């Protein structure tokens, strides 16, 4: 059974249809990339999978591990192992990273019937994972994303993913706003998370990230539909030709 199966997914925002029939199957252990020009619906797809209610699903279904994903609240999805790294991570003043993430981890662990971690055990785990992303432990005491640079915010997202160990990770334009050094660190963090039990969906505008996180499959989204799918070579090809030719194809 596929870990994620999207069938004919339509979604709109404020009456405007953004996704117009997406079909996608991901097996555990796979890394897929969703590419496409601005406004093609990439981020919408990520948000719909995470359960953002600004988007209305008008047609189609999404099966996650055989369950109807669309029926679940965002927090239920998260507890079931769906993680989204945000394009724009949100600030929570006054709440430390470690407090926030421990609450999140314990919500997930509780759901899985595991014992909740106390602050000491959590700290041990968190320190281990911080190393993956070359982050200073002092970072745990800072308020969630407050005063973080763009690069720190993105690293923080991947750090959270490393702690929460999701089964399906969706990275929404994690590369945007990163310089090349930060990009490499983030990519190596993601690569360290690749595992036969986990599927990773990388949403990106640029091929650049895919030099470091090499996908098993690449899908090109345009006008709310997947217009082409291929292997990693497709990303290279797009880098040469750009999206314009594809958009012309869709318009035709």
């Amino acid at each position, binding site marked *: 059974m596929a870990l994620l199966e999207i069938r004919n997914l339509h979604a709109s925002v404020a009456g405007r249809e953004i996704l117009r029939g997406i079909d996608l199957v991901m097996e555990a252990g796979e890394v897929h990339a969703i590419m496409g020009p601005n406004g093609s619906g990439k981020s919408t797809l990520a948000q719909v999978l*995470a*359960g*953002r209610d*600004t988007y209305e699903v008008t047609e189609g279904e999404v099966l996650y591990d055989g369950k109807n994903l669309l029926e679940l*609240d*965002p*927090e239920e*999805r*998260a*507890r079931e192992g769906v*993680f*989204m790294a*945000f394009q*724009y*991570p*949100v*600030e*929570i*003043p*006054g*709440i430390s990273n470690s407090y*926030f*993430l421990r*609450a*999140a*981890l314990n*919500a*997930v662990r509780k*759901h899985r019937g595991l014992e909740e971690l106390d602050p000491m055990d959590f700290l041990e785990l968190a320190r281990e994972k911080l190393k993956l992303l070359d982050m200073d432990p002092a970072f745990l005491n800072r*308020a969630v994303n407050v005063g973080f640079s763009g690069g720190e915010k993105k690293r923080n997202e991947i750090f*959270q993913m490393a702690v*929460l160990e999701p089964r399906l990770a969706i990275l929404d334009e994690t590369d945007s706003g990163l310089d090349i050094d930060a990009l490499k660190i983030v990519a190596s963090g993601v690569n360290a998370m690749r595992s036969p039990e986990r599927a990773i969906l990388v949403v990106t505008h640029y091929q650049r990230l895919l030099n470091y996180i090499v996908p098993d499959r690449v899908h090109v989204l345009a006008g709310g539909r997947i217009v082409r799918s291929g292997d990693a070579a497709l990303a290279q090809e797009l880098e040469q030709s750009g999206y314009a030719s594809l958009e012309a194809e869709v318009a035709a």
Partner: protein
Amino acid sequence: MPNPTQQPTPIEELVSQDYKWGFVTEVEADVVPKGLNEDIIRMISAKKHEPEFMLEWRLKAYRHWLTMEEPRWANVTYPPIDYQDIYYYAAPKSLASRPKSLDEVDPEILRTYEKLGIPLREQEILAGVAVDAVFDSVSVATTMKEKLAELGIIFCSFSEAVQEHPELVEKYLGTVVPYTDNFFAALNSAVFSDGSFCYVPKGVRCPVELSTYFRINAKDTGQFERTLIIADEGAWVSYLEGCTAPMRDSNQLHAAVVELIAHDNATIKYSTVQNWYPGDKEGKGGIYNFVTKRGKCLGVNSKISWTQVETGSAITWKYPSCLLIGDGSVGEFYSVAITNHYQQADTGTKMIHIGKNTRSTIVSKGISAGYGQNTYRGMVKIMKSAEGARNYSQCDSMLIGDKCGAHTVPYLEVRNSTAQIEHEASTSKIGEDQIFYCRQRGLSSEDAVSMIVHGFCKEVFRELPMEFAVEAQKLLGISLEGSVG
């Protein structure tokens, strides 16, 4: 997900249950008739066996009150109050009308207590279970009182103080909040039924946090309390007021007066967690909390610090203030005020700088949800004599939803050019983005809101004594239940 706005919050259920028990109708012999006149005041004073000076003071207050008009300047609206339709003195509820054990208490109420993490024994007391629980609390209070007495600390009910220490009461009563001060203070002065009294002698550091917790629950203190705390030279005291579980009150109007006096080098820390009945979610019922709280930093280098967490009451009208008279004295005000549903709060502080090098800090966090209206009203006044005075004010508002309101009304009056004043203000909206972010990490909406609000209030919470801070945080979560759908 189910829409939590459809469910009444435990607090609402709790208090409506209280009314169901109908202890208002169960009033026994020891009650004075409805309404207010000089005879009623004489009757109250007589019931309390007060010395002549108390009665005279009450009558003067009453006569002055008659000449006053109810203030209308606050940003709150409510129907006119009929002052002749109120019982000004009600006896404690008879033991017979109380539930006999926790088995007789509504499970919903117990659920709320559990959420607040209140131990079973205290639950019994809060729920008003008769039998030994109440006696227990009395004995706890007594044990502590004996320990304190060894240090020369007087901590007792106001009535007791009037009997046992009339000279102290006469010396200090009304010296911070005179009966002429305002409409509600005058009313309180005329009819106050009881309250707390505390005197910490020279050089004594009170070793425990003093709390009204047990005593008030044991006695079902009425709605016109009066508190008087005096810290003599070099004394230190921390006082906790209120109760983190909903207190029962059969009446609508609550007009208390608190007076604090700090002599040379003395410190008084006064913390409040206020959780009176806020009314139902349509805005029906609830307590009008019209309270006058003021501290006088009389001595040099004295310090008075107010910390309040206001989550209850239909209307809150309250400005814990400091008169900074002694040179180098310090006033602080840390406040969290939450209004949900149709609650209204007009709260803030006054810092009056009179002495040289006086300093004040104001940190106010207002949270509005539902149709709640939250106004910060504060005054910083630097008198001519206050050479080198400093003030820092920070007023932050948070909005949850789009039907509530936040208002900030800072007054600033500076008559000495050496003063340094800083004022910062911000308004933020608790974002769908923030909530979604938390939910995507596995937290429920309510935990998300509670966490975000807690972060927002952190600077105030850390001023609270440890146990209070934990309870305040839980209470905050409960108060905001149903604020996001």
